């Protein structure tokens, strides 16, 4: 089969690899119909996540058709159309019982490695380094899905792939980021980063009753999408001082909650960006936490900083005095996708939510190297790249590929 493989920093390629097969009783094999590049895939692409090896199959946002099930899977049948959550969860452990699926204790075969770095291991994740299991990912024609009786969600035929694909990651991730803000009526929520996760966080914050959402980015097309998602105000951080404008907009108090939808490769204006770039390049810090710092400083006293962006290792110059003295609550985590999929699917079915608005580029799997490059460099106003492996006849918008 064809699969998108990591070939080194800044290099991905489509390779011919063997087809996957059932390895455990609770496995299923899914024939992928649609898959996407996640913003967090760019951290792998840029080489900021350790334990990537040449030949690793990428991708953790995918959906498709069940073509084979193991003897331990009784709730799925061959032919079912499913969306697969990016964390792999057993459904039986301490965390799964508490619906903290991304913390599953039983799905990471390399848990001992993660424990050395983080103290404990999170769940295994498709196509996301050997630190989280080394599972072959979903940017391929077929994927082996472990614990298939727990993760995959059967989706109705009435909905397009593009409408439900993002249930696998970015939609629940944005939703959880907003949910963690404990939004009360009239709350002001500031969202850093208007990529797919940020856009869904904005949309979810509105659904959860936020009074006002302020979106922060530097790309006009992304700020435009933020407005479309429901943000009342947009801030281009290259034009204004973020901390100042947030104070001004909130009468000096600051936003009630701040969402970091950027993560370890943050870009901000000013000297601190150069500082982080240098430290990261010299391997003196693994992550650039510029947005996290800003969010902590901007947040009102007693407020919440919700971290949806991915961090991998160590950050430097954290204003922890502000966290303590302002009584800030920090909430974070890989998304417990399984917990949110059903209710979000209902919102999609009811028409309350149409996640497909974030898609800017529809490519074939063979064009993956181009897709990665374009997405990383934000070329051609790229916000979200999806690979359509089996274009469904009823897809409304024509597939347009800018091959400049």
């Amino acid at each position: 089969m064809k699969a998108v493989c990591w070939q080194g920093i800044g290099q991905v390629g489509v390779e011919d690899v063997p087809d996957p097969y059932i390895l455990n009783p609770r496995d299923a094999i899914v024939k992928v119909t649609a898959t996407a590049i996640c913003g967090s895939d760019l951290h792998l692409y840029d080489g900021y996540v350790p334990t990537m090896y040449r030949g690793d199959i990428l991708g953790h946002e995918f959906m498709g058709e069940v073509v084979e099930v193991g003897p331990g899977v009784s709730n799925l049948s061959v032919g079912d159309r499913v969306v697969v959550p990016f964390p792999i969860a057993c459904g039986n452990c301490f965390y799964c019982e508490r619906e903290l699926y991304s913390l599953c204790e039983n799905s990471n075969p390399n848990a001992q490695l993660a424990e050395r770095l983080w103290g404990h291991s999170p769940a295994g994740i498709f196509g996301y380094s050997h630190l989280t299991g080394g599972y072959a990912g979903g940017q391929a024609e077929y994927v082996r899905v472990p614990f298939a009786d727990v993760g995959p969600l059967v989706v109705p035929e009435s909905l397009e792939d593009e409408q439900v694909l993002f249930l696998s990651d970015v939609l629940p991730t944005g939703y959880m980021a907003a949910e963690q803000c404990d939004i009360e009526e009239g709350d002001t929520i500031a969202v850093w980063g208007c990529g797919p996760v940020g856009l869904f966080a904005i949309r979810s914050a509105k659904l959860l009753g936020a009074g006002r959402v302020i979106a922060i980015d530097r790309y006009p097309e992304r700020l435009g999408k933020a407005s479309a998602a429901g943000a009342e105000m947009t801030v281009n951080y290259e034009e204004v001082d973020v901390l100042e404008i947030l104070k001004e907009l909130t009468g000096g108090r600051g936003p009630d909650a701040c969402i970091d939808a950027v993560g370890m490769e943050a870009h901000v204006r000013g000297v601190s960006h150069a500082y982080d770039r240098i430290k990261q390049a010299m391997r003196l810090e693994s992550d650039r936490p510029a947005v996290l710092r800003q969010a902590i400083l901007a947040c009102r006293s007693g407020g919440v900083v919700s971290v949806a962006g991915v961090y991998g290792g160590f950050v430097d110059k954290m204003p922890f005095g502000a966290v303590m003295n302002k009584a800030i609550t920090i909430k974070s985590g890989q998304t417990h996708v399984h917990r949110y999929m059903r209710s979000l699917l209902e919102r999609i079915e009811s028409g309350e939510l149409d996640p497909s608005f974030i898609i800017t580029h529809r490519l074939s799997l063979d064009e993956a190297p181009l897709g990665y490059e374009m997405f990383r460099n934000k070329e051609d106003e790229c916000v979200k790249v999806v690979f359509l492996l089996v274009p469904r006849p009823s897809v409304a918008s024509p597939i347009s590929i800018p091959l400049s």
Partner: protein
Amino acid sequence: MSTGSQEHLRRAQQSSGAGAHTSVHPLYQEWVGYEAHDVHEEHEEPLVDPQLLANALGWFSIGLGLVQLLAPRAFGRAIGVGEHPVLVRAIGAREVVNGIGLLSQRSTGTWAWSRVAGDALDLSLLAIAARRPAADRDLQRLALATSAALGVTSVDVYTAQALARVPVSEPAEMVSASCAVNSSPQALYAFWKDLANLPRFMSHLESVTRIDERTSHWVAKGPAGMSVEWDAEIVRDDPDEGFSWQTVPGSEVTHEGTVRFDRDLAGRGTIVRVQMRYIPPAGRVGRQLGRLLGEDPQAQIEGDLRRLKQLIETGEVATTIGQPAGRRSVLGRVTLGRRLQ
């Protein structure tokens, strides 16, 4: 003692590195309630630490040996045997080797007995010298030398015997680990008690077959692809709480272990605690070789418990072995599938 402080104790013991060579782990005694299944006989505390004596004898050997090597003629005259430089030098060389052996802290008991053997040789040489009608012998000096040699011999014999009584003079390996499992002590006890289940999560085991109610035959993968077999018997059995086993005398490996299933608080399942001690097949060499091949016993037991947890909770062991991948680099081929999946 609370679970927390037990854990603290265990960690402190591990980090001090004491775990590997102490005879019995305090926590182990606490679980098991008695000392290490009497594998080693009860012994009285010796008057002097035999290890200290061994060290002293080591330095003495080296000192004496150097004198014999550097001034063989003067030494011969001093003990009244006359000048026999070649023989005295040979004895000196033996003393130096023996001294280094004793100080190396390895197989100290053997080196102590080797000193006793050397003493016997020396005493016979002195006796021969006393009977020879050589002109240069000095009976008075010979008598003095012989009594000195006898004195040293008694110290050597005492040290060698005391060292033999020290428990675990062999390089025993002690490992322990614990793991919270979302299941009941009863279910875990039943699963473990069915010894045929052990190879499903203990990756170094090939098979365990029951011989009778208490005894079983174990086959394990040893270092460097060797296979190791032994018989073990259950020496303590507390239904639904845990049990202890040990190898039967005369086995190729010496191995003993205890597993406890402690119910955790507020319905949070069971904490499985395992403690194992064994003397690897080829002793120290076998262990080092094993380490070299990436078979660290502590990591091994932690991995085993993790797999047990997965089997009990999910019915399978998480794996990616056999999944597809693109073209690997040399580094990837070396690393993946061994240390990493």
